[in-house]
């Protein structure tokens, strides 16, 4: 179980933060996020030319009579944001100093949930490892934060990282489109591309937060070592020389860059988080500068 705290200090960091409209998606429920949507909603925003495929019922006939050109009214709809937090609680997330990767992931998840709950958005929290774990869906109100913290603290750390299994199960159970935040180390042998593609296909916005520790980077390792995989128990004898470590780090850095580019090329978000980073700085640097929060 990840041991972490989420108290007044963490809450103070999240005060007055809101999600930006970039990540908001149209929803039937009304909320605080304005979403442009043709023909629906209460507030007029603008006109635009009719293109094939538009619903003919949205054509403004008054304008057509005057201009002999079909135009459609664009209305602004204020919708609610669904924030889905998927926290990796596999065995590999247990490592880390001064805090474990799972702890940092949980703290970030709580922060994102708190921002959403204080702004009236809906929050779904789920843990996953080799399958989808516990899940709290469609939470509202600040009081739900306690349930979220309790859920994350009680989630057992174990199993292998299987993004495909976890995300597939989540996608089947998700009832609302919205933002999916994946907090994981993305050290999954089965890969990460296909699960994210599946989410995008369902018109989810994806925010990948890759949490790594100094041990992932091979820091503090030297000499002839027997490395044991924390998830599978497999071992490998390596000679951790400078040259060897450099090559290993180059590979890991390439992996992180590939995750980043995979997300950003698709208009999604990516954030690298290190367990040594200060929590407040991570919120400010990662989430605000990347346009997720404001």
């Amino acid at each position: 179980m990840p041991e972490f705290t989420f108290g007044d200090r963490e809450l103070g960091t999240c005060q007055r933060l809101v999600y930006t409209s970039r990540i908001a998606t149209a929803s039937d429920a009304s909320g605080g996020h304005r979403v442009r949507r043709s023909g629906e909603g209460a507030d007029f925003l603008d006109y635009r030319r009719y293109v094939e495929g538009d619903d003919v019922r949205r054509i403004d006939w008054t304008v057509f009579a005057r201009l002999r050109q079909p135009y459609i009214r664009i209305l602004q709809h204020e919708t609610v944001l669904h924030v889905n937090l998927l926290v990796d609680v596999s065995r590999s997330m247990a490592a880390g100093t001064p805090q474990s990767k799972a702890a940092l992931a949980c703290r970030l998840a709580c922060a994102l949930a708190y921002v959403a709950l204080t702004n009236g958005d809906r929050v779904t929290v789920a843990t996953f490892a080799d399958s989808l774990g516990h899940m709290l869906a469609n939470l509202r109100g600040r009081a739900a934060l306690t349930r979220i913290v309790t859920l994350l603290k009680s989630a057992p750390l174990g199993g292998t990282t299987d993004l495909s299994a976890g995300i597939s199960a989540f996608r089947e159970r998700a009832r609302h489109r919205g933002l999916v935040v994946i907090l994981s180390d993305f050290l999954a042998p089965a890969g990460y591309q296909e699960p994210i593609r599946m989410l995008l296909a369902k018109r989810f916005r994806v925010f990948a937060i890759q949490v790594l520790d100094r041990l992932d980077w091979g820091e503090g390792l030297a000499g002839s070592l027997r490395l044991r995989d924390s998830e599978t128990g497999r071992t490998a004898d390596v000679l951790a020389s400078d040259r060897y470590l450099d090559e290993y780090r180059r590979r890991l850095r390439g992996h992180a860059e590939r995750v980043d580019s995979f997300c950003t090329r698709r208009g999604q978000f990516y954030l690298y988080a290190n367990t040594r980073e200060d929590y407040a700085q991570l919120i400010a640097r990662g989430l605000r500068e990347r346009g997720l929060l404001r």
Partner: protein
Amino acid sequence: MTLLAPGALWWLLTVVPVAALFLFRRRISEVEIPALIFWEQTQRRDTLGRWGRRLRRWLSLLVQLLIILALVVALAEPIDPIGRDELIVVLDDSATMQTMEEDDTTVVPASRRWTRFDLVRQLILDRLRDTPTGVRTTVILAGTPPKIIADRETVSQRVRAALSKRRPRDVNPQIDQALEIARRKRHNDTSTILIISDRHDPHLAAQHGVEWLRIGHDHPNVGISAVVPTIGEQSVDVILNHRRMTPATVTVSLIVNERVVTRTNATLRDGPTVARLSAALDPGEPFLVRVEPPDAFELDNTAFGVWPAPSHVRLKLVTAGNPFLEAALDQPNTSLNVIQPGNWPGEKVADVTILDSPRTGPGKPTPGRFIVFGGSDPFGVTRAGPAATDLTPTQWSADNPLLRDVDLLRWHIDRTAGMLPPRFAQCVAQSGDVPLVFVVRDPGQPEDDRDDFAAIYVNFDLAHSNITHRAGFPVFLWNAIDHLLNRRPEDTLISYVTGVPLSFPPQRRSDTRVTDPSGRDVQAFFDDGRLVVPFPEHVGFYRLDTGGKRIVRAVNYISDGVRSVGGPDEGAVARPLPRRPTWLATLPPWGVLVAAAGALLLIETLLFHRGILKVG
């Protein structure tokens, strides 16, 4: 290999904690990592098997131990002057090795000042302490004369015992001769001969198989190079030489029986400085001359002397008139009586009679000493022979005292006197078969019996030769007088020099005893009736006691260097006694530890992090 600082071997104990730490460290670390995926993908994997890793591990330990060993050996200052089984040391025990050195080494405690010889001896003794039994050790002292105090000795204790008793001699070194002896003593041609001296001879040092260890500092020095009695006055001139001496003014004292008789101040200038000391001393009285303040080399701050006894000679010259002879014989402390040939032999007694072209005489040998120049033999000792003309000397005895400082090559004789020497005569110079100078002495009588007959015959008239015009004529004449009177020039010396034979006047008695300045008996040999100490080694007064009679000779040290007056030659002493030749010498023990740890860390970093070796 010999170690200059064998105590550093104690540092070898550091291998114990290093090895223990190595052995008790976990052999292979098992680390749980989050995921193995990228570790496995990395190409450079440790493909060594179990035995490979074990071998690498022990290789690592071996490297560490070798590093420690190298450090310790470096601290122990190994030198290899000796080969594996032979140690040959040429040790300079000459006078300048008595120079006091400030102790800037760690060979000896700093509680007192040590001479260079003390330092070197201690160095060799330390080295011998660690020399294993069986190593052939030869130690040759390079003073005058060279001495072998250990000849291929295999028991180091004996060498140490022989060396411990030595002290430097007040002589000049003969390193070249000592080196030659060392070469002959060398059993193995590949063995190196170690020469330890405060001097330096680049020619010898450059020779194959020679290692020259030069020691000592360069010190300012003032010294007495000579003490010369002034003729006709009761005074001596003291000649001082100095080098970089401060202060520039010194006090020169004349001391008799440990009492200062007179003293004067002398201001040192470039080149020799002369200080005159006047005093009324009795003939044969020993005295000292001392220069103050003393310097690092005190040996030449004191000179010893014996006030010369006046040597009065009575001469009788029988001649019809020869200004050259009269001028040559008219010398101080000499009474010359010139008589006509018709008045000889007269009543007046003379030590030596010089007969210039005599025509008549007693016809038989008469008691006395004579020098006969040409004419006819007045004593009837020689035989008559044919006269030879136009001669130059062709054979002569160069070491004969008659010919000392005389150049016979320029002699020319127009006509000889036709004398043939008797059977028992000693021919000194001749031209072909023609004798020119010969000595006739009754072979049955001792040399110093003045009641007997002795004569030197010069087989030509002075008027028939050019020798009176030669500068060496008075020298030859006085050589002949001294020879007949059995006088030696050294008998008139105020002092002798160490390393040069010291002679006492002829002694009849056999119960003679010669002692050196410290009162110890020294060996003396009879040579031509005189008692000779072949190599006086120490400065001071040598005494000959024979039947209640005592004769004193003073011996001083005179440097063979021109400028140094017994002190070290300028530039000859370049560095102090080497103790630790490397910068490690300056490290305190904790510094050595830090250096050792740093070296281990460095080697671990270089080898291990480069993936060459793994430690632990």
